[in-house]
């Protein structure tokens, strides 16, 4: 007559661990946050007749090209880490995770160099030498939020690497962090064309 609790419980409709589903939900909410920022930027750019187009091929676009290659390559090393973790190869997982951390750190360094270059040219949050004063606010807000995600990801990967090597974190943790890292890569694919390539100095 009476069923046990285990028989009553239904399986997940998605057949994924709750941790992974939570990360997916976070990613979706974060995607909408970035979407809102990019739409806000698009609104201001379209409404301004004097929007600056300061990005020269050298150094800005060249820098962006290197950053893009670095970030997409880091997604590949992250895939290697997730796969190695699933088959239980801790040494290989650690190597792939630290390769990803290194690439993420290079990306962040290049990004900060780009920022300092623009600051040297006189770009501030609400002023710049070229045109609409809101250029700096949108540029630093969008790229800054992305940079914050990269730096957070690098820290998270370092923690995950240590935890997985010591056995107190599972391959599931590596996989969930991998999802986040690929999302950071995905956002960059929209930031480059909208923030940089639409504002090229020809």
């Amino acid at each position, binding site marked *: 007559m009476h069923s046990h609790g285990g028989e009553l419980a239904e399986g997940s*409709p*998605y*057949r*994924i661990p709750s941790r992974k*589903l939570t990360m*997916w*939900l976070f990613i*979706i909410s974060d*995607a*909408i946050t970035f*979407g*809102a920022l990019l*739409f806000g930027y*698009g*609104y*201001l750019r*379209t*409404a*301004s*007749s004097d929007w600056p187009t300061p990005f020269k091929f050298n150094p800005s*676009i060249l820098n*962006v*090209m290197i950053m*893009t*290659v670095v970030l*997409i*390559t880091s*997604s*590949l090393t*992250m*895939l*290697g880490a*997730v*796969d*190695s973790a*699933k*088959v*239980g*190869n801790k040494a*290989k997982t650690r190597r*792939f995770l630290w390769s990803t951390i290194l690439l993420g750190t290079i990306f962040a360094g290049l990004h900060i160099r780009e920022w300092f270059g623009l600051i040297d040219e006189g770009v501030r949050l609400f002023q710049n030498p070229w045109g609409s004063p809101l250029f700096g606010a949108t540029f630093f807000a969008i790229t800054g939020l992305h940079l914050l995600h990269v730096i957070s990801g690098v820290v998270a990967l370092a923690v995950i690497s240590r935890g997985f090597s010591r056995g107190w974190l599972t391959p599931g943790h590596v996989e969930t962090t991998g*999802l986040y890292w*690929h*999302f950071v*890569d*995905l956002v960059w*694919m*929209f930031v*480059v*064309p*909208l923030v940089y*390539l*639409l504002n*090229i100095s*020809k």
Partner: protein
Amino acid sequence: MAGSAASKNVIAKYLPVYFVLLGIAALEIFLAYQHFSIGSLLAILLALAVCGGALAVMYFMHLAEERRSLFLTLIPATIFVLLMMNMIWSDSFRLLHMKPFPH
């Protein structure tokens, strides 16, 4: 050793996606230096970015390998919200031409 072989395999498996993503990035930069109107360039770059993003979500994030219910829960809702944000454009163009609201 088994883990090492598996990792090599997974990288080899996703290398085509990796190169397509790099190709899309290169194409975007090439097109940005061509003489398109800003609207056309925006449309082309956005279309390419969506293709790159879709590849990353489906293959790097393995959404293609998950149950369809996960895809149907996450993606249509996200697209709907992002599409709803497009309602700002008419006001943005109005500001550009400094036209007042109709009374």
